[in-house]
């Protein structure tokens, strides 16, 4: 298990991320799975909330999010510890999203131990204005191979995440996808 923590992005990564982000097949999968719909309710919502609460507690992080990457915004499917505008708007503009960086991660896991020292996030208001200082995210990869978004934990202090946190996040990201795909199959 390796979690990338690169401090800069090759110039080509932004273009690659944009291409994946706007891939019609990926977005079609999001629609098919009902992830562009209003927030889930009932037992599906309870299960996702419990999952993000669990991952935040296990990683000793103040916040955890299941984020779905739409074309121009990150949609927060479930969150624990999130407040303010991101909570009330159920998301934020995609150019602020840390999770979109997982799209360029071959391992599917991205660790950013200090967001203020990462060149990719130098102008990011989530860092500058909202004070997020550390990130660990695992891609939500469907059985069809499309990345929907990421399950992530956020912290307001710089920190190194141990390998077991990356392992946990990866496992729970698979569980999120299984739940989402199972719900879509059940609804079909």
């Amino acid at each position, binding site marked *: 298990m390796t979690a990338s923590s690169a401090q800069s992005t090759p110039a080509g990564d932004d273009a690659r*991320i944009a291409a994946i982000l*706007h891939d019609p097949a990926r977005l079609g999968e999001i629609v098919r799975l009902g992830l562009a719909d209003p927030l889930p309710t009932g037992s599906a919502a309870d299960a996702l909330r419990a999952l993000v609460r669990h991952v935040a507690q296990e990683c000793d992080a103040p916040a955890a999010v299941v984020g779905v990457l739409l074309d*121009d915004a990150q*949609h927060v499917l479930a969150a624990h510890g999130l407040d303010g*505008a991101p909570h009330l708007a159920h998301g934020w503009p*995609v150019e602020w999203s840390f999770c979109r960086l997982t799209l360029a991660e071959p391992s599917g896991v991205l660790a950013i131990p200090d967001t203020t020292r990462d060149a990719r996030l130098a102008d990011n208001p989530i860092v500058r204005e909202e004070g997020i200082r550390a990130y660990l995210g695992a891609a939500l990869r469907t059985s069809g191979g499309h990345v929907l978004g990421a399950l992530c934990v956020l912290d307001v202090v710089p920190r190194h995440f141990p390998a077991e946190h990356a392992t946990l996040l990866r496992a729970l990201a698979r569980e999120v996808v299984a739940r989402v795909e199972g719900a879509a199959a059940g609804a079909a």
Partner: protein
Amino acid sequence: MRERLTAAAGASALGRIPGYDLAAPSDTDVRFALERHFGREEADDLWWEACAALGLPRDRRPLALPDVERVAAYFECQTGMLRIVGRSMLIRIRTYALLRERRGVVAAPSPPPSPAPSPAPSPAPSPDTAPEAVPPAAPTPALAADPSAS
């Protein structure tokens, strides 16, 4: 950000949220997103269909932010890629409105919203209707003070 990933590049600096460099989402942004997925011609048709359904004059541009929000909400209620476009734009619009309220930003001048009633589901009214300043509010952190309460 080396490459702007979204459509808001042409927006005026007036009305941008300080520190966030976020401009009010516009009808240009929505049409840009439509064109990205459907091409120019179909995007035009979809735009005009939405305007007709909402009682908006089809060639009236720029639209006021509440009308842009109504169009986004209309698309969110459709199927397929339109739903993605609508949901994305609504998140951007609501983020902008919430941050503007929080930061007390003076909105860019814009035409008044259309008074026409909408047959489509209407989103909550946006505060972005007049160019007057909003009293600054205390910053709200992105993370809850008590995570267990969330």
